[in-house]
């Protein structure tokens, strides 16, 4: 069974990678399996300076999902290059850096610095709902999304995947904007903004009040958006949102994703990515497919 997929800058031996922010910088998961088995690894968001993020509690459980408001806590792009990437680079799997910021300049700065040969692609996070400045504005305004994509493209020779926010009226126009700005691919979707209130304390559980909703709860929204965007935009899509089973992966590929990322399911089962990779051949076979490539966009034929 041929699991391989080529998308700009990335020759993936299989289409499964951990999603940004749900896998740290890989170290913790290396005790559960060999990271070289992964199709790729998307690392935690990098910003210009180190950030502490939001106060705790930062997570809450919801029906078939969770809220998080980590707030882009990270050691800063220099810290990541110095302390985190050296652990990952020896593994035989491409690394995708998640680029974030509060200003166009910060995005540019991070993109430039992290394009130093240690990572194979950039994922531009214009969709983090959990920071006060930047992040989500860039992801909800097509013009700003255009600007930030263009700016990042100028700073790097690496392929640029732009990660879209689902918190928008018109996902297709967002996708078209970043396509016009020169993006090489799309990542869809980031979390939906949500809230949970504790009836005992009468306050939102998440200290930041709102958080990003992830998990199977949002899968139908992600599938719909990918299906819409695939029809209108030529860019390859890395699909994500609530993936827990090999059937979910097939669903994403059929909708139009070329590869998938697994996020919060890593918290349930730390070996979920590798388990899915092992299950994929049998699942493809069950549905009559002979390669991953063949499944992509299948729901559109």
């Amino acid at each position, binding site marked *: 069974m041929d699991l391989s997929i080529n998308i700009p800058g990335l020759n993936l031996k299989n289409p499964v990678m951990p999603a940004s*922010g*749900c*896998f*740290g910088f890989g*170290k*913790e*998961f290396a*005790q*559960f399996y060999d990271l070289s088995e992964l199709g790729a690894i998307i690392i*935690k968001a990098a910003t210009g300076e*180190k950030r*502490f*993020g939001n106060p*705790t*509690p*930062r*997570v*809450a*459980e*919801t*029906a*078939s*999902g*969770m809220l*998080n408001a*980590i707030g882009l*806590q990270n*050691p800063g792009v220099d810290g990541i290059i110095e302390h985190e990437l050296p652990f990952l680079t020896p593994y035989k799997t491409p690394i995708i850096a998640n680029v974030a910021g509060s200003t166009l300049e910060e995005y540019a700065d991070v993109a430039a610095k992290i394009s130093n040969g240690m990572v194979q692609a950039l994922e531009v996070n214009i969709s983090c709902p959990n920071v006060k400045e930047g992040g989500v504005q860039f992801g909800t305004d097509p013009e700003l999304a255009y600007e930030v994509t263009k700016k990042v493209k100028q700073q790097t020779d690496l392929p640029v995947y732009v990660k879209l926010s689902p918190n928008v009226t018109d996902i297709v126009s967002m996708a078209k904007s970043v396509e016009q700005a020169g993006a090489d691919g799309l990542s869809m979707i980031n979390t939906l903004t949500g809230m949970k209130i504790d009836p005992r304390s009468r306050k939102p*559980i998440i200290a930041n009040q709102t958080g990003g909703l992830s*998990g199977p709860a949002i899968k139908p929204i992600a599938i719909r958006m990918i299906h819409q965007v695939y029809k209108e935009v030529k860019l390859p899509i890395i699909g994500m949102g609530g993936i827990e089973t090999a059937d979910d992966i097939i669903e994403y590929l059929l909708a139009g994703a070329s590869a998938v990322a697994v996020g*919060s399911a*890593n*918290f*349930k*089962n*730390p*070996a979920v990515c590798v388990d899915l990779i092992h299950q994929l051949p049998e699942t493809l076979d069950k549905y009559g497919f002979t390669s991953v490539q063949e499944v992509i966009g299948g729901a559109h034929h």
Partner: protein
Amino acid sequence: MIREWMRIVNHQEIAEKTYLIELEGEISTLVKRPGQFVHVQISEQYFLRRPVSIADVSPVKGTITLLYKVMGDGTEALTYKQSGQSLDIVGPGGNGFPVHQQRGEQALLVGGGIGIPPLYYLAKQLTAKGVSVKSVLGYRSESDLFYVDEFQSLGEVQITTNDGSVGEQGFVTDALPPLNSIDYYYTCGPTIMLKKVKEELINVPGYISIEERMGCGIGACFACVLETSESCGKGYVRVCSDGPVFRPEEVIL
């Protein structure tokens, strides 16, 4: 740390809404220190795992014991699991309490409510090394008492209850023994209690075990971070992997 399905070999209510569950599996052989925890998948219905401290380890039976209180839907659902069934567990997580004290030294254990369980395995380890252990255990009320005999078999125990139904009325900090004889203290319980204990025992070296809502439980998601005092390193720690046990001077509660 591994993930495995552990068999339930014992499950019983030991106090009001408080349960003992004993789990058999390889994780029991991997526990390094008291104060480590396991991350429990209650069922497919609950998206996040629940962190629960390891209250005891039996190398002979190859089991760990957890003591948990029903606090919400997840722990409530856990009570319906029966002996013979298996539970999806990731662990052992975190670093736990160091057991570096020497024979003849004095240790003070201060536990509040469902913070008491990890102190039991700690007390066993300390007394095994010849450390003399005093425990102050705080409960809400008489019906909430558990493991008092077990602690008493390891040393002096002082009980407090919020309503005065047993032991002293008040909080654990109202019943601390004279501090001059204490070499180290170890505490676990609600944050508000930890704060008070930290203040009262400001002159005694100690260890604090902290609770925080968790995502991954293995150090990857940064859900459980705590700010550290200015003097300390990178500015934050992760409760799940750097903790849950910290030096009181390290962290801001």
